[in-house]
């Protein structure tokens, strides 16, 4: 039996491709940051120091070294998993990922749950009732939720909700963040581990607005995807065959059409991770969410080379790993993918 098309070989190929992908990305980020005008010293102290003092500060920071030297140092560090420290606030990059990654994770997971809870049932309903009023309404909802800028949706939600006293920013109240010991650095999990009901509810409340804002954006994709796939499935031979066998329509739809319509969702969930991380940046900014996206924006504004490189690398690794996982799952489900 030929090894061509085997799952291990396919997985190995995909994993090997990860290395050049990340290298290209790191190089692009490095070059883009350097060709953009400015540097971290000028960004923070340019309005204070003389040209000579600025040059001294840049020299001490090693920013006046040849670019090629900086590049190879950077690649060498990354290869040894040394991401260094942020320039502007002197934090180890690993600590930034650890301290802020939990907030981004809980935001994206919450948003995905909302997207799936909203998107799949509405998509199935729209496909089932094609060209009825409910189908049209759901389709419009799907387009609007996908097209509306997240900062606009978020701001609107904040303005509407703020007068009720519902928390509109951050992941928890100041007291909760002070009292709950960071064990996993995923605050909602830490509140459970601490057995603190008030803190848990506080964190849960804080998650509602940002998760809904980001979840609605994602739900638009799922609505349209599930609807189209259901319509395709309903035209399938196996559906016709089931009907011909006299299987009741509701069973035909539920057991044959629905299940097959959901298979492509797995692929799209993987692809949506990148979109979600992009959306998380805007969501975090809007809701002052202490996640990696908010940190990334802060460091970009400050021209913090090492921080941006480190965080983009992390984001890239997450997206690549999820893509590979999705490919593997797809390969397991659908043998055609492996060939």
């Amino acid at each position, binding site marked *: 039996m030929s090894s061509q098309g085997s799952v291990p070989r396919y997985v190995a190929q995909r994993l090997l491709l990860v290395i050049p992908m990340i290298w290209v990305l790191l190089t692009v980020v490095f070059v883009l940051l350097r060709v*953009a*005008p*400015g*540097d971290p*010293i*000028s*960004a*923070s*102290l*340019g*309005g*204070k*120091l*003389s*040209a000579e*003092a600025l040059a*001294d*500060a*840049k*020299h*001490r920071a090693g920013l006046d070294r040849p670019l090629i030297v900086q590049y190879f140092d950077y690649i060498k560090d990354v290869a040894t998993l040394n991401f260094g420290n942020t*320039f*502007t*606030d*002197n*934090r180890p990059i690993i600590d*930034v990922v650890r*301290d802020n990654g939990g907030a981004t994770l809980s935001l994206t997971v919450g948003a995905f749950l909302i997207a799936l809870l909203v998107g799949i049932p509405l998509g199935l309903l729209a496909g089932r009732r094609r060209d009825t009023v409910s189908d049209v309404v759901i389709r419009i909802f799907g387009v609007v939720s996908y097209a509306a800028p997240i900062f606009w949706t978020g701001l609107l939600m*904040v*303005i509407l909700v*703020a*007068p009720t*006293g519902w*928390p*509109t*920013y*951050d992941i928890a109240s*100041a*007291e909760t*963040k*002070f*009292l*709950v*010991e960071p064990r996993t650095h995923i605050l909602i999990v830490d509140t*459970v581990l*601490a*057995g*603190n*009901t*008030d803190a*848990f509810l506080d964190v*849960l409340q804080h998650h509602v607005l940002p998760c809904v804002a980001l979840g609605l954006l994602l739900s638009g994709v799922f609505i349209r995807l599930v609807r189209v796939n259901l319509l395709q499935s309903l035209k399938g031979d196996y559906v016709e065959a089931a009907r011909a066998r006299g299987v009741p329509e509701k069973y035909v739809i539920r057991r044959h059409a629905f299940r097959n319509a959901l298979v492509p969702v797995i692929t799209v969930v993987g692809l949506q991770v990148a979109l979600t991380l992009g959306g998380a940046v805007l969501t975090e*900014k*809007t*809701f*002052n969410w*202490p996640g990696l996206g*908010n940190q990334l924006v*802060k460091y970009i504004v400050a*021209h913090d080379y090492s921080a941006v490189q480190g965080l983009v690398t992390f984001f890239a690794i997450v997206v690549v790993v999820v893509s590979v996982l999705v490919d593997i799952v797809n390969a397991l489900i659908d043998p055609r993918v492996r060939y």
Partner: protein
Amino acid sequence: MNRRRGLLAVASAGVLVASLAACGSGGDGDGNDGSSSGGSSWTLGTTETVTAMDPAGSYDFGSWNLQYNIFEQLMVVPAGESDPQPDAAESCTYDDPQQITCKLREGLKFSNGHDLTSSDVKFSFERNIAIADPNGSSVLLGSITDSTNPDKPKLADGAIETPDDTTVIFHLNKPDTTFMKVLTSATSSIVDEEVFPADKLLGDSDVVGSGPYKLSQYKAGEQAVLEKNDKYAGEREGKTDRLFIQYFSDPAPLKQAIDSGQVDIAWRTLSPTDLNDLEGNDNVNVLKGKGSEFRYWVWQLGTPVGKQKAVRQAAAYLIDREAIAKNAYDDTVKPAFSIVPPGFAGQKDSFQEKYGDTPDVDKAKQVLQQAGVTMPVAIKLGYTPSHYGPNAVDEATELKGQLENGGVFKVSVDDAEWERYQTLYKQNAYDLFILGWYPDFLDADNYLSPFLRDGGFYGNNYSNPQVNKLLDQELAETDAAKREEIIGQLQDITAEDVPLIPSWNGQNVAVATKNMEGVEETLDPTYIFRFWMISKK
């Protein structure tokens, strides 16, 4: 049947969440319920960022303000005043313009119980200079620095003498009457030599000081929690046992947070539009104190237009500062008629004296005609659209309109983001460009030397030997009256030569809920937010 299974699943999920939520006792296990035993805790919201808690690693508002509350300096500027008063020191006096002797208070202790002695003071300055962190402010300690090797600056030999545990003698390498003010700045914070490394920064969460508060928790970019330092025995005793500082990445959520009472105080930086909007909220007070923020337009003397004194003077005749304050900043700033803001010793409104307080088109034309300059004079005005806030574009637009009044100037406006802007204005890309300034310490010299000596920090090619001489004189002058006179002369020369045109002075603005006390009192030109003065009813 299936519907029942679905309902069951939903109900199970609900029970699971509820169980999860209820699985604990509701406490944190140590009996800490988050409330303070003393004054009610309160929360400050700010968009400022913290570069480092270590005084050797920062030169920014966000870091310095925490350091003022966590550390002691030898001297301190009390709220609403401008003259330094003793803090960790019992006294600090100039023996001559190059020597200061400080006597420490007896029994000083850091919050960890270690004794604070003159050795800690010397160590603090020594490490600050030696570390020379690129983000740090050791540049302010030039009067005690040996920069012979720029790669390895160090405390000058014999610059600090500590004859006993409570005496510190500074020997300055040049006459410097501003050094006493430097001693009040956060860069002069006293750190524990048993805790802080001599050659590198200490981690943010590990800092230990002897100020009225100690840092109990710090989550970078999220929040800082300060608690009262029970070892502190000075005059800055805190009124609140525990307080929170929450960091906002954007003014919009900060405005919403104070508007809805989710934070007790919002300080730095809400836009003029937000402040005006909050004035209509009955639950908060918009509090305004004197500020020392300074906005000004710099003439680039390296350009053919900028080098003509008559052109610079003509522009000074045309400025309507009241209109700029009103139209660009909703009257949240005050017109500035001098390079030195009001309230500083020696300040005088030299530009008002020379050019009047309202625009005078005829005088502007007359100056240009006498110099033989053809009108309209084409100039390029530069500004940066976001570094100084969203209103910079309004200011540039207003200025353009004023300069073009009567056909005196023909202005083209150009903008660039901050990083590119800095390069452009030094490369003579603009004839006139906008910049802003916050003082490092409250002394008129901090508005004179950085601006006027040999082109200033912005490199505008202005150089006047008489100015340089006067700057040296005022730095060395210990007689207050004589010094004020020299500072006045410097402002007059600036008005005559017009290397820059003062635009406005900012106010120190905070928004606080009605039950906050002591906020207004701390809003002064130092921009030190004195947490120890603030309490919540």
